């Protein structure tokens, strides 16, 4: 045992040395002229990063996250030093409530002027202090016109028995419960327990009709014509519609979700000036347009939109009329309610 002990000590020392040296190299990096970006997977045209490096001389370190919560936990637990992060609306609200964000100095980000007024000052950042919108979109129904005869105007069609096992729902408690709440005429941000229970009953009723609860695979299923109706984000819808001309997109009359992913600077950012340079760069119309042509999602700037290809520019899926937008609701940070949402979602799927 004694001998083992020695070996363990030696090995632990080795590990410790490794850690120290690697953190040293981290430090060396900190002093350099870099910007550390943390974004969703497949959410940027990488050519833009090269362009940014050439224009500013700032080196980009780029990494991906898959969900807001993954990103949140990583930032919350410390040890990370990102300069620019791109969370969604409700997560920005949560992070600013927890003092995790650093106010952006707009003097260094003059390109904010290209962002349209209707995409600013939303509930997640009412004073536009912390965030600069990156992409936005809506939630709606993609349907196959050869399989659906009825008009798609209401969320109610997702409860129509005619389409049993032809309906694909989103595997997301927030969006699915939101849809049920909207159909019932309540706010998609409802926190009233009785309203949520009603939504739960509605979703349970829908369960036998649902083909699957998916997120990423939905696009392929719709393109291949394997389901009639699917709940999708507008960005994915644009892409699906471009690959299969039988598909159409509708935002139901009851209202739906309007979402934003926006760039923020974490409170512990090591290179806030470089972060502001990057945010300014991404807000420049030509760069925003280049990114939008690559990702298909909607950009919050008319100046940038005008640079897009005609087809994308005129797409009502990506850029619905203002009248429709007015009825949409941005998700708020549910706080502790997230557990109730989670339990409801389990109940719905436990059948």
């Amino acid at each position: 045992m004694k001998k083992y002990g020695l070996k363990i000590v030696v090995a632990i020392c080795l590990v410790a040395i490794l850690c120290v040296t690697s953190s040293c190299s981290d430090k060396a990096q900190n002093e350099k002229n870099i910007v550390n970006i943390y974004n969703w997977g497949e959410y940027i045209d990488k050519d833009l990063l090269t362009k940014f490096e050439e224009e500013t001389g700032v080196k980009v370190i780029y990494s991906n996250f898959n969900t807001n919560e993954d990103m949140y936990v990583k930032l919350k637990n410390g040890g990370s030093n990102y300069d620019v992060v791109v969370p969604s609306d409700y997560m920005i609200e949560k992070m600013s409530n927890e003092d995790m964000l650093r106010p952006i100095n707009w003097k260094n980000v003059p390109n904010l002027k290209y962002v349209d007024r209707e995409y600013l000052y939303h509930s997640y950042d009412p004073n536009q202090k912390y965030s600069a919108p990156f992409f936005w979109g809506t939630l709606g129904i993609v349907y196959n016109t050869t399989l659906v005869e009825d008009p798609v105007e209401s969320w109610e069609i997702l409860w129509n028995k005619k389409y049993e096992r032809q309906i694909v729902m989103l595997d997301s408690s927030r969006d699915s419960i939101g849809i049920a709440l909207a159909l019932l005429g309540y706010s998609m941000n409802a926190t009233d327990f009785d309203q949520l229970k009603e939504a739960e009953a509605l979703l349970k009723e829908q369960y036998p009709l649902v083909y699957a609860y998916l997120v990423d695979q939905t696009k392929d299923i719709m393109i291949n014509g394997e389901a009639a109706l699917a709940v999708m984000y507008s960005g994915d819808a644009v892409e699906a519609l471009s690959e299969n001309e039988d598909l159409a997109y509708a935002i139901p009359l009851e209202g739906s979700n309007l979402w934003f992913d926006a760039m923020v600077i974490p409170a512990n950012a090591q290179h806030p000036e470089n972060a502001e340079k990057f945010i300014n760069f991404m807000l420049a119309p030509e760069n925003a347009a280049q990114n939008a042509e690559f990702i298909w999602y909607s950009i919050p700037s008319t100046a940038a939109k005008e640079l897009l290809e005609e087809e994308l520019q005129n797409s009502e899926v990506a850029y619905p009329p203002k009248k429709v937008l007015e009825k949409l609701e941005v998700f708020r940070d549910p706080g502790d309610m997230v557990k109730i949402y989670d339990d409801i979602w389990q109940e719905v799927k436990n059948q």
Partner: protein
Amino acid sequence: MKHFKNLSAPYVVWALIFIVVSLFMVIFYAFTGETGQFTTQHFVRFFSGSTLGTLFQSLKIALISTVICLIIGYPLAYIIAMSTSGRYRATAIMLIVIPMWMNFLLRTYAWVTILSKNGILNSLLRMVGLGPLDILYTDWAVVLGMVYNFLPFMILPIYTVLEKMDQGLIEAAADLGCNKVLTFVKVIFPLSLPGVVSGVAMVFIPAISTFEITALLGGNKTNLIGNVIEQQFTVTGDWHYGSAISVVLMLFLLVSLFFTDREERDKVHASASDMVDTHQDVAFPETNQQEVHYD
């Protein structure tokens, strides 16, 4: 030998960091709240909420998959092990192992293409004039995915035990008037039980905790305990509750392992002594008896 012991030091450190420390972290998270104070509320939530239903659902699906694996896997292992040609045995085992060289997510994803509404299976069925089968995104697709992925883990341990079995015992049984069926029931099967037990454990444990198969083949309609845990970490962001469910699952598996282990060992004991009792005139060679005891 002493020399080699030193080489295990990195492994000990590895195990300490990645097994022991992470295990304690899971337990720590399970018993603390957001501010770090001790609490058992996560367990109360588990046992009073919907997740308990998910656990039973998972047990059911894992059990069905394990039974099907056993029904398919045992005869297959038996046929391979009883072959007298060494080359045939080696080839057969290779054929079982080779698919495992490919990433299991890829193989599972391939099933999506096979089972989907306009997929390969339905195209074939249409060619022979049969109606389309709607299997993808049902419980049965999940069971199929589990059986497909975990079958080798059932076959290999059973095969190993059967192959090593002392042929003398089988011959002795025949000499004593057992026909083939009786030999199997009274000798071969009881002796292969250790292999069956490890096979069952190696299928049941990953089956109950998987979340990829349910997501890909079940379309998330079949909600298993693994999915709930994944959900806590990636979507809800509630590491404490996720850890608590993991702890419950670990306890569950530990307890069931302990029971099956004891039970099966007893059975092997019993059947061995049973054999000795009923055929008192036959003296088993000492070594064989030993082997039976410690198997």
